[in-house]
């Protein structure tokens, strides 16, 4: 297994105000010193709740946003050091699928026009060859070639998401970031789209970084799972280890909060106190300290290192 993507100490800070006069020095650490690697051909799942930084991480890996510090490597090449023309080439190999099928397609462009972007920008195919390829792709994602002449508003959410997937595939990428690809869809449509992604991954052989807040989706689709909380990566494990032996208290809470398909489960679980929003973590300490059920005095002042606690199992916790 070769490493396709490597992320080292990736950090992104957002200043509180854009106007430099009003900047008080307060920053939001959207992504804070995150490191992990993605193997070729696998699906890596990044899970966490609102504000954890997973979406930002996805954008950083593709350099749709510039990192504050840290490096990203793709196929051994440093993405974070690429020149604009090199980034252009990178975009052909690394694509993204967005969450909202309603706003990610331009309502004024026909499907044919939207899909032809990739072919035009990278000069991949023209004329009838392009038409054939687009039709074949549409067929592959479960839509007919007659979709080409239509406009986005004529399709349902699930169908639009298929178009979004087809668009990403027009350039035959090696790596796809799927940012909450099914969060806006009904459960039965979600199943269709997840199956589609699995099938396409098998046929087109791309590596996927799947980002979602839905633990079930992440667990079902991923080979490795990373858990993020308030900008930090708190745990990383293989799928099975993740479920059978979660080490970080946040991961444990996440797993036990995910509603099980069993009646009468409520009240038997350890509910986390408080919320992300109104409890800022202490500077210098563990980000999870305010809500952690096993926190001690040390946790308030010491930033736990991200260490290996087993084969391919990493945790950032003083008490794991």
């Amino acid at each position, binding site marked *: 297994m070769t490493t396709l993507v490597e992320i080292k100490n990736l950090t992104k800070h957002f200043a509180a105000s854009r106007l430099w006069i009003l900047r008080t020095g307060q920053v939001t650490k959207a992504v804070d010193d995150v490191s992990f690697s993605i193997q070729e051909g696998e699906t890596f799942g990044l899970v966490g709740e609102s504000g954890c930084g997973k979406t930002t991480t996805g954008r950083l890996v593709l350099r749709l946003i510039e990192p504050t510090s840290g490096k990203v490597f793709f196929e051994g090449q440093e993405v974070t050091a690429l020149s604009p023309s090199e980034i252009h080439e990178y975009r052909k190999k690394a*694509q*993204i699928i*967005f969450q909202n099928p309603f706003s990610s*397609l331009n309502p004024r462009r026909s499907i044919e026009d939207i899909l032809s972007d990739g072919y035009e920008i990278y000069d991949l195919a023209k004329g009838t060859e392009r038409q054939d390829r687009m039709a074949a792709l549409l067929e592959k994602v479960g839509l007919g070639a007659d979709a080409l002449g239509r406009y986005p508003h004529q399709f349902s959410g699930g169908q639009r998401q298929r178009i979004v997937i087809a668009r990403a595939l027009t350039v035959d990428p090696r790596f796809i970031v799927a940012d909450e690809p099914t969060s806006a869809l009904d459960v039965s449509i979600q199943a269709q789209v997840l199956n589609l992604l699995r099938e396409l991954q098998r046929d087109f052989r791309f590596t996927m970084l799947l980002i979602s807040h839905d633990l079930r989706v992440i667990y079902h689709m991923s080979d490795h799972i990373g858990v993020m909380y308030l900008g930090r990566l708190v745990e990383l494990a293989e799928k099975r280890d993740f479920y059978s032996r979660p080490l970080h208290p946040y991961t444990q809470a996440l797993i036990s909060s995910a509603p099980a398909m069993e009646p009468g489960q409520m009240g038997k679980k350890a509910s986390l106190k408080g919320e992300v929003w109104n409890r800022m973590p202490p500077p210098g300490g563990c980000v999870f300290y305010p809500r952690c059920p096993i926190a001690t005095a040390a946790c308030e002042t010491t930033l736990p290192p991200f260490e290996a606690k087993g084969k391919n199992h990493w945790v950032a916790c003083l008490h794991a």
Partner: protein
Amino acid sequence: MKLIRRLRTNALAFIGALAVLGVLLMAMAAPVIAPHDPLEAETSDRFLPPGNSKYLLGTDFLGRDVLSRIIFGSRISLLIAGLSVGAAIVLGVTSGVIAGFFGGWVDTVIMRISDVIFAIPTLMTALGVVGLLGRSMNAVVVALAVSYSPLFARVCRSAVVSIREMGFVEASRAIGASRARILAKDIIPNILPLIMVQATTSLSWAILAEASLGFLGMSVEPPTPSWGTMLTTGREYFYSGPTVPLFAGLMTLIAVYAFNLLGDGLRDLLDPRAWEQLN
């Protein structure tokens, strides 16, 4: 409810479109349909009342046919309105889109300049320009173009700023589209309806503005007929021959209202659907 609304706006746009078309045709066919030469003065036929067989709407203080002058006057009004709004669109849309797309200090500089121009009333700008360039059609066109471009700039800039944040723009970036491509394929097509609506509204203002400027003596020089100048000279001789200002004013009213109706109708037809789709 929706049905009634759609019919009503369609009817509005329809009536507006018809009226606009009528005025346009009148302007274009002026040499053909005008019964007399608008500049031909028949001093023996001064101040004739309307309703006689030779001069349908009567004559003015120099014995010139009012109807012909009104018909030819439409040319001036529409030409000035068209040219000035056209220039305003070019200037305003370009600066607005650049400001919205690039943001930062470019945005700030462009918008503050446009704010300053916007703050000066149209008539004052016209005064300044006419003072510089003298009384002529060019002067009026330049004055109105300068006055109206901030509006286009502002409308386009805010539209671009909100479209810039939309998912499909990020998607285009992600697939490697150049900024030019994003502008051409994603941004401009989505602001076109806004520009169209603003354009029709501005056209109606421009017609009115030309009439006002003409009335103040800042538009074309006599003897060229324009509705505005006809209002001025007509005012002087109001008690002898009220038909001149009456019909000039009436035509102005009709033309302004026609463009307004068209603009309103277009707004209802185009905007909600476009934004509904984006939601």
